[in-house]
């Protein structure tokens, strides 16, 4: 019974495929999965916008949207209608083709990443044996679309936003990948399904998630920090910094194209969160062994919602960083820590399991942490700059 419930979507898909001639089955199977992804994750986006506005409101002691429907539940519908009916304005001097393509590229790239995310047992669109690699390769297309938007708009603000976005995304792409390398080192596979399978066992009632190891917890924290920066969310939302460059690279977009950018950003956030779950939080596996009767996809989406809640919480708490702080943080702190974490993963792999292994690994992380953060905390002295040519 629990197995049927767990596999209900898989069974439904096979039942549907029974009506398709056998030659067209591979394509039909892919189409069904794609449609499911196209329904579920944009729906999650709608729910998240509401949750975010409500949550931020409560964090700031406000009610948040509560007019559209009971408790404001229809607010996403109202937002959708609004953005669909708004006028679509394209600047006269903009490069129309690129300007039009940028949001499409963003959403496409964000959606492609879901192809390798296992959202439940046997529920993955395609089990690539280089799934993690595919994920990061597709994720970096987002940078392209951001730059397309910023460059084609022919606006100073959008160009500044795009420059910031590119600088930030490239800087944080490195620690993002390096933080996930430890998992690949440990599991010995680039396939997301295999990585989840390796974490699905239990010792007693406790799961074998990678987050419960020294390199796992550090990797998870580094991954989430880099993911926040990758998805341009507060406190790393410099590319769209409302108070400085209004909306950054998508300032010249209105109506549904703007909504597409919004959608693309959130889809990117869900995808990286899903990747964090896959790599560190055991994917769809239940957190305790006696909870396995709850279907696997429920666990995946609960974890996803928890991470989204974390993102909202962080957004409601931290102020935006300055550009130099952002860059220093990436190159002077996150990157060395990610590299050290790889050393920790190696030590963990080759030391016999004992309490000593824990202590050694913790020491390798903790000492540089203290040293590096001391460097971050040091007050920077600024000197009056003299301009050679401007005067």
């Amino acid at each position, binding site marked *: 019974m629990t197995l049927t419930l767990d596999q209900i979507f898989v069974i439904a898909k096979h039942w549907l495929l029974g009506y398709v001639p056998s030659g067209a089955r591979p394509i039909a199977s892919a189409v069904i999965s794609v449609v499911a992804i196209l329904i579920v994750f944009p729906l999650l986006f709608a729910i998240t916008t509401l949750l975010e506005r409500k*949550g931020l409101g*409560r*964090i*700031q*002691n*406000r*009610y948040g949207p509560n007019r559209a429907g009971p408790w404001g539940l229809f607010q996403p519908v109202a937002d959708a209608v609004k953005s669909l009916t708004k006028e679509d304005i394209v600047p006269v001097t903009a490069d129309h083709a690129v300007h039009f393509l940028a949001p499409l590229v963003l959403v496409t790239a964000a959606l492609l990443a879901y192809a390798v995310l296992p959202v439940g047992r046997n529920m993955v669109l395609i089990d690539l044996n280089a799934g993690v690699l595919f994920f990061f390769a597709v994720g970096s297309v987002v940078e392209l679309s951001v730059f397309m938007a910023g460059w084609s708009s022919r606006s100073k603000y959008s160009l500044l936003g795009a420059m910031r976005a590119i600088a930030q995304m490239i800087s944080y792409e490195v620690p993002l990948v390096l933080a996930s390398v430890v998992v690949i080192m440990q599991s010995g596979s680039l396939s997301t399904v295999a990585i989840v399978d390796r974490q699905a066992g239990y010792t007693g009632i406790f799961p074998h998630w990678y987050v419960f190891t020294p390199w796992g917890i550090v990797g998870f924290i580094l991954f989430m920090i880099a993911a926040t920066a990758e998805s341009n969310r507060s406190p790393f939302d410099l590319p769209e910094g409302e108070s400085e460059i209004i909306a950054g690279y998508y300032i010249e977009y209105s109506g549904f194209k703007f909504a597409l950018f919004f959608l693309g950003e959130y889809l990117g956030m869900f995808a990286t969160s899903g990747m964090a779950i896959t790599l560190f939080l055991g994917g769809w596996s239940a957190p305790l062994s006696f909870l396995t009767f709850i279907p696997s996809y429920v666990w995946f989406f609960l974890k996803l919602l928890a991470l989204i809640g974390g993102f909202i*919480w*962080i957004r*409601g*708490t*931290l102020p935006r960083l300055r550009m130099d702080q952002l860059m220093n943080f990436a190159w002077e702190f996150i990157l060395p820590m990610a590299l050290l974490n790889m050393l920790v993963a190696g030590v963990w792999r080759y030391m016999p399991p004992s309490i000593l292994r824990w202590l050694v690994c913790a020491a390798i992380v903790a000492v540089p942490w*203290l040293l590096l*953060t001391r460097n*971050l*905390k040091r007050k920077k002295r600024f000197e009056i700059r003299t301009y050679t040519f401007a005067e």
Partner: protein
Amino acid sequence: MVGNGILKGLAETARNFFGSYVSKDRLTTIQYPEERIEQIESTRDFPFLVYDGADWHAGMRCVACQICEKECPPKCIYIEKSKDKKPDAVGKPQAYPAVFNIDISVCMSCQICVEVCPFDAIKMDVVFDLPTDDRFGGLLLNKQQLAKSNDYYHQIHPTEAAAVDSALAEERAKADAKAKAAAEAKASAPAPGVPKPTPPGPPNPAGGETK
């Protein structure tokens, strides 16, 4: 250690988040259409015309002197003076506004019309929710829409209205005394006295509560 500040901040926002569900005091928002803040007495937004008694047309204090029309900085008042005359509050025959329009979409709520009115005929209202489908006609208030009773004035601005009423009563008492003196002077002569300052018709000139 680095990160303490972040944790403190997260704790604070979490306290806000859960606290806002527990204690109503944290939420400062007034849910407008259902809840309203009580307005302070000096609230003002758009002008209205005061009338005494029950009949808005007969009791209107405005005598169409057009001072407010001339003084209005954004020129939102339009007055047409009547050709005939009607008795005013003290019974003196006065002109009255045949047309008195205020475009509240133009009005800037400066209260200058109120300051300059010698007859205490125009005062500031407190009604602020005046939404309409028709942004030209709907926001152009005519004489009848502008006319509001002295009782209403007392309701919205009690202190101010009481002061205005006592000043008016004093003036009327003075006018009465003058008229009486004139009547006595004329009484020695065979001519009939000036009619008592009670105008014919329904409006009670003294406004009831002032005397």
